[in-house]
């Protein structure tokens, strides 16, 4: 996803001199081509995330379009009040780009895991949140963020996320990325799995397995966490009666909370809902990303198990 973002940013910077890449001592090699061709549209703030965000807001107030990039935790949490006051309160056209969504930096431990970032960013007035599922979607989300006027938080995994969509980079398969419009990845009327980000891979794996066992699971990709696509959620709830949310994030304040709010407010609180994510915990253990998904209850087996539990009710 990171490379797809950089590819998009490279194109954007070439087309519009107002586009600036801001970084905080993160991403040496991946920025080489950009630095060579657009050295005047590149600023490294060093290890000073809070200052990077304040300066980004100031730049935006003078018509620039800054993309401030670093590890998600440091961007959304270290600099939280800068995001709130300087970017959101003053409605600045700043794009915040965080890498290392969820616990993809598995071995680096919880200081480097972004598992509360959605809750924080979602609470901020005027913030748009894109959480792409793979590289092709990350490319499109970056382009969409540039087209919008206003704050955007772009939540990226890192290099090497598996494909969710078939086809060329940036094509998102046959889909065109529409902000606020979730994507139906799989049809099915027995239950719905609503997910966001790279963890959707596990939803698809689970849906494949459930299909072999005769259960048709619908899979929905919420690539825009805010504003959320209420329609697709309500339709899925009405048509299947069973909803599982899946996120590489705390269930408190994240996608699971969003979906619960949508359902409850629409009077569909009777729908069976199971939220998969971190439950009042930091991501446990170290190891590979795959091992971490398993250890933290987010790999496909857990989705399948939750599906069976809902089916039996």
């Amino acid at each position, binding site marked *: 996803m990171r490379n797809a973002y950089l590819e998009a940013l490279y194109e954007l910077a070439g087309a519009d001199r107002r586009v600036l890449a801001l970084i905080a001592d993160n991403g040496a090699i991946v920025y080489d081509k950009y630095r060579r061709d657009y050295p005047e549209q590149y600023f490294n703030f060093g290890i000073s995330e809070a200052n990077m965000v304040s300066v980004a807001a100031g730049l935006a107030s003078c018509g620039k379009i800054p993309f401030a990039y670093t590890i998600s935790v440091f961007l959304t949490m270290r600099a939280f009040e800068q995001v709130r006051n300087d970017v959101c309160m003053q409605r600045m056209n700043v794009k915040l780009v965080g890498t290392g969504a969820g616990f993809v930096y598995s071995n680096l431990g919880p200081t480097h895991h972004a598992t509360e970032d959605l809750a924080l960013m979602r609470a901020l007035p005027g913030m748009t949140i894109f959480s792409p599922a793979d590289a092709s979607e990350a490319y499109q989300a970056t382009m969409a963020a540039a087209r919008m006027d206003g704050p955007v938080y772009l939540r990226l995994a890192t290099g090497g996320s598996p494909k969710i969509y078939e086809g060329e980079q940036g094509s998102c398969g046959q889909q065109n990325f529409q902000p606020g419009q979730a994507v139906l990845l799989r049809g099915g009327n027995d239950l719905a799995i609503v997910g966001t980000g790279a963890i959707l891979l596990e939803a698809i794996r689970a849906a494949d397995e459930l299909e072999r066992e005769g259960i048709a699971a619908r899979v929905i990709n919420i690539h825009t966490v805010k504003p959320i696509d209420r329609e697709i959620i309500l339709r899925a709830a009405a048509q299947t009666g069973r909803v599982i949310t899946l996120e590489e994030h705390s269930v408190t304040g994240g996608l699971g909370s969003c979906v619960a709010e949508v359902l409850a407010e629409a009077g569909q609180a009777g729908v069976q809902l199971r939220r998969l994510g971190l439950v009042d915990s930091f991501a446990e253990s*170290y190891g590979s990303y795959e091992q971490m998904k398993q250890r933290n209850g987010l790999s496909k087996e857990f989705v399948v198990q939750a599906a069976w539990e809902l089916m039996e009710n």
Partner: protein
Amino acid sequence: MDEALRKELQEMAGALRGSIFRTICRGGGGHIAASLSIVEILTVLYWAVLRIEPRQPRDPERDRFVLSKGHAGVALYAVLAKLGFFEEGVLETFGKFDTVLGGHPDMHKVAGVEASTGALGHGFGFAMGQALAGKIDGKDYRVFALLGDGECQEGSIWEAALFGPQQRLDNFTAIIDFNKIQAMDRLEEIVSVSPLAEKWQAFGWSVRQVDGHDVGQLAEVLGSVPFEEGRPSMVIAHTVKGKGISFMEDVPIWHYRLPSAEQMETACRELGIENFSREQLV
């Protein structure tokens, strides 16, 4: 310094470098250059300065050491293992599933780790809290914190820099690993923190500068804190990032990277490591 002691400390530093290298290579990668840069500092602290007892890691009277640049955790693990805070064999689990030794140290998982660090700009203030608690309780333990030079770009460092002298924390000593390189490049190319000594002096710290690879100088300076009564002490240690492995020394790309098979051979030769094969990596 006594020649025998100097030799002993130097040998210990050499052994620790070997341990760090093996641990990181076996674990499939880590912050190698940042760990090699602080070996002598840790050696002198742990074998000549800190009043600690590995069998009583929670003794309330103990001196505390906080690794604010937590990404060099492997260097700390190597030290703690050598001292017997945990079995040396545990080092072999680094980077493996369910290890207790993460890429950054966790105080609830590893005996001897005084603060869970990894996000830069936290450990310094955290350690200062431990020093302040010591003052409040009238205890005579001392607190030491080790910072990166790049870490000094964080605003929180300078908030704490103001606070320490205000509270007259002369039981607190900070050491800056001044290797002049951060993650991507040299500080001078990104955001300079120079002149470092003058900055800390201006903030009210009592400052000394040392060669951070000279165990004699380190022992003398770290053994004489506080430098002034009523002031926190600051030791600026001039170091070489990647120290001990020729092709890594002072080369920014080695911030986080695994050596190739050929490079491993060279490194092993330079560190005096025998019987370390590539097969041991898997």
